[in-house]
């Protein structure tokens, strides 16, 4: 018989070291007595195992199971794990899938108990606000876990409360977090007067009592999930007996009370409120747009449409660009300047046209100091569509000209191959006209093709001008 001594608690490192040594020496589970803590064993020698034995390679699920099971209080845990490892190394590499195997089943129960304990500690631990000597916020908790799980809960609490300073005390160990590093400490005693002077703690108890519906009292279900052993450390649980006792009487009172006579039941006010809420003017709509959050974070501000209400032509572009975003005005960047020139050549006065975009915010990726334009997705275009439609309904143009595919998508709800379908198009509520976006012209390599494309664009605008006149 060989005796292996491990530290009290969840001694994962010690177990790992011992396991390597035992495997290297070929010592089987029946030849080992696992001894935990300082208690001397009556059996076997504690002859040191080789310190430099090579690591044992185990399937990942087995490693995870070991990490969990060593946290259990069961004194047999190390022996059971040793048996598991032995069988895995002897060829049963998938044995954890064999859930009906007695050893696998037994270990699964230990694992489940540990995971349940972890979950309950995550759930039922309560922090209390205390003050450090320097007056800084400090959160302190006392909890009594069933198993040796304190260290295993640390990642959860660090992740959740990274920006707070906190201490967790338990009878089997403690944790301390100072916003930068974690200190694992020894077992502790229950601190005195934890929730003294904490109005939130008082508020929580009142919340807990108020959220209970006496007509559904079911203490069995409650105890199945929150056994009595946890109540002592849950301040709100003090109220439970009285809540249960008074429930039947409260329900009886509700049933016996006569139905309240309905007072002023006319729905006029509610109906009127619903009718009133739609924006009634372009200015009101614009206030809503300005107050809204961009769908894609980053934009400086919403860029509103510009131009006279009642304009014969409304021109809809894609979205504001870098310069538009900075200035808060549509079509002021390079593409906007090109549009202005083309409008002039087509005989359209820019100031007489209503200019807007399908999407009201600049979408970009930051590349160093540069902000690179990104096309809006179909979903984003849809998101902004209500505003665009509402906007057009206030402007009431005779013709809506869309520049590029995004604007055409916004007005038609489908993807339009712009170069193939450019020209007049029915937009449902509006007479429409589809053409390219001036930024498309800017991207063409200089040369004959680019000149021709620009001339086509001007021709489109001229045709649109004619249409707007005719329908007027």
């Amino acid at each position, binding site marked *: 018989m060989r005796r292996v001594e491990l530290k009290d608690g969840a001694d994962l490192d010690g177990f790992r070291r011992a396991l390597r040594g035992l495997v290297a020496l070929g010592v089987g589970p029946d030849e080992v007595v696992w001894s935990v803590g300082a208690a001397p064993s009556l059996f076997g020698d504690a002859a040191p195992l080789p310190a430099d034995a090579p690591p044992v390679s185990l399937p990942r699920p087995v490693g995870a199971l070991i990490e969990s099971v060593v946290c259990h209080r069961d004194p047999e845990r190390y022996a059971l794990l040793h048996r598991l490892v032995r069988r895995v190394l002897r060829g049963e590499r*998938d044995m954890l*899938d*064999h*859930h*009906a*195997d007695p050893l696998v089943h037994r270990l699964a129960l230990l694992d489940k108990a540990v995971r349940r304990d972890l*979950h309950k500690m*995550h*759930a039922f631990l309560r922090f209390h*606000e205390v*003050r450090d000597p320097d007056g800084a916020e400090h*959160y302190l908790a006392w909890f009594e876990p069933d198993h040796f799980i304190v260290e295993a809960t640390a990642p959860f609490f660090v992740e*959740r409360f*990274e*920006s*707070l300073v906190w201490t967790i005390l338990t009878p089997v160990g403690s944790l301390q977090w100072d916003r930068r590093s974690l200190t694992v400490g020894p077992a502790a005693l229950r601190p005195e007067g934890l929730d003294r*002077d904490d*109005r*939130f*703690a008082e508020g929580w108890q*009142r*919340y*807990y*009592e*108020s*959220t*209970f*519906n006496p*007509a*559904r*009292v079911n*203490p*069995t*279900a*409650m105890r199945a*999930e929150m056994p009595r052993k946890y109540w002592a450390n849950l301040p*709100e649980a003090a109220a*439970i007996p009285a*809540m*249960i006792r008074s429930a*039947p009487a409260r*329900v009886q009172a*509700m049933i016996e009370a006569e*139905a*309240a*006579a309905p007072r*002023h*039941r006319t*729905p006029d*006010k*509610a109906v009127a*409120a*619903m009718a009133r*809420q739609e924006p009634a003017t372009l200015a009101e709509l614009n206030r809503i747009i300005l107050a809204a*959050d961009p769908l*894609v974070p980053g934009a400086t501000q919403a860029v509103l449409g510009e131009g006279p209400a009642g304009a014969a032509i409304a021109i809809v572009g894609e979205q504001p660009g870098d310069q538009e975003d900075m200035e808060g005005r549509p079509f002021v960047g390079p593409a906007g300047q090109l549009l202005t020139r083309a409008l002039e050549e087509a005989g359209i006065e820019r100031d007489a046209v209503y200019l807007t975009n399908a999407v009201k915010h600049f979408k970009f990726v930051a590349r160093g100091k540069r902000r690179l334009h990104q096309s809006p*997705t179909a*979903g984003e275009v*849809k998101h902004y569509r*209500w505003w665009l439609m509402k906007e057009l309904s206030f402007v009431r143009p005779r013709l809506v000209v869309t520049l590029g595919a995004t604007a055409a998508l916004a007005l038609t709800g489908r993807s339009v191959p712009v170069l193939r379908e450019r020209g007049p198009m029915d937009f449902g509520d509006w007479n429409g006209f589809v053409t390219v976006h001036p930024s498309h012209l800017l991207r063409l390599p200089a040369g004959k093709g680019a000149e021709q494309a620009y001339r086509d664009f001007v021709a489109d605008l001229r045709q649109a001008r004619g249409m707007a006149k005719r329908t007027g």
Partner: protein
Amino acid sequence: MGRTSAVDDALLDKLEILADAAKYDASCASSGAKRRTGGPDGIGSTTGAGICHAYTPDGRCVSLLKILLTNYCLFDCAYCINRRSSNVRRARFSVDEVVRLTLGFYKRNCIEGLFLSSGIIRSPDYTMEQLMLVARTLRRDHGFAGYIHLKTIPEASPWLIEQAGLWADRLSINLELASDRSLKEFAPEKDGTAIKAVMGQVGERIIEAKEEKRRFSPAGQSTQMIVGADASTDLSVLETSDTLYRRYGLRRVYYSAFSPIPEASSALPAKPPPLQRENRLYQADWLLRYYGFTVKEIAAGGEGGMLDLGIDPKLAWALKNRERFPVDVNSADREMLLRVPGLGARAVDRIVEARRHTTLRLEDVARLSSGLKRARAFLIAADHHPGGLTDRADLRQRLVAPPKQLSLF
């Protein structure tokens, strides 16, 4: 912000009123959100699985701070304690107060986040905007990474609901009653078509955002139906749910057995329905979503469109379809194993996995499933055949424990 000045008596009084007013909403789930942490400057995390931080003596869990922004309401829905003709005490939180309470309770590890609903004040748009502002303040100004569930106001303008989806983990729109007719009768200002239009809108945005890798209500949408306030049968309730799951991609439908409320309206039935009805509907809902049952099959287990209150719907179906049993655990396909009473989806998965390694005996099955007592009449294992048990006339009595009075302590 000083410790004592942060919360005063007036705020705690409001909390009591507005928690009480919110307790009839069945949902308190905080699951389904992507993993997320607040980091060194923010606060909180979501783990993907929800955490119930306490249970009240009604057996329901407390996972979120579930409150109303206000219980003033323009509407007059008969089943609702906050309807405008009710005489309850009224209160209203400011946006800042809800934010403060949420952070205060969160830091004490009492909650996973916030479930915020509201009566309708001024206008649906105004109310929706206030709800959205709470979520935005928590996320943007405080780096809050906990769970946020907003109850949308279906009558609010579409763009406000879109804004809410940017900040919330889950949006819900309560259908409340299974049929449009009941809705007309009990909730005169509500419009069933509008509710479904919002569900459609939210459902569409969720799908788009997923495809385009944007954030929009990432934990999906849910709804609630009140059971027993109107004459709807279980069949019609389940048919409605089935449609909601399939057409709008809802994550959950909650069933809330109508329970007596103070200040009840005379339009309501005098007696509450048995709470067991709600439980059976949840079981049926589960069969619908995870066990491959159709609404028709489930309903056929009961009588006249109502589920059997005495036994769970899967057992009810099996007892009426005994010719399909017994099923051999060592050879049956997964679909059929899922229909065995007492075997849950997890147990079935483990059976399928384990039988690749061994031929299962009854004691093996006992280690894989905790429901063997009910399952054995319907199962064949290597060392077990139920013989005539499956067809015995008194099988139901043998499987159902006689009802006993529940102790209150």
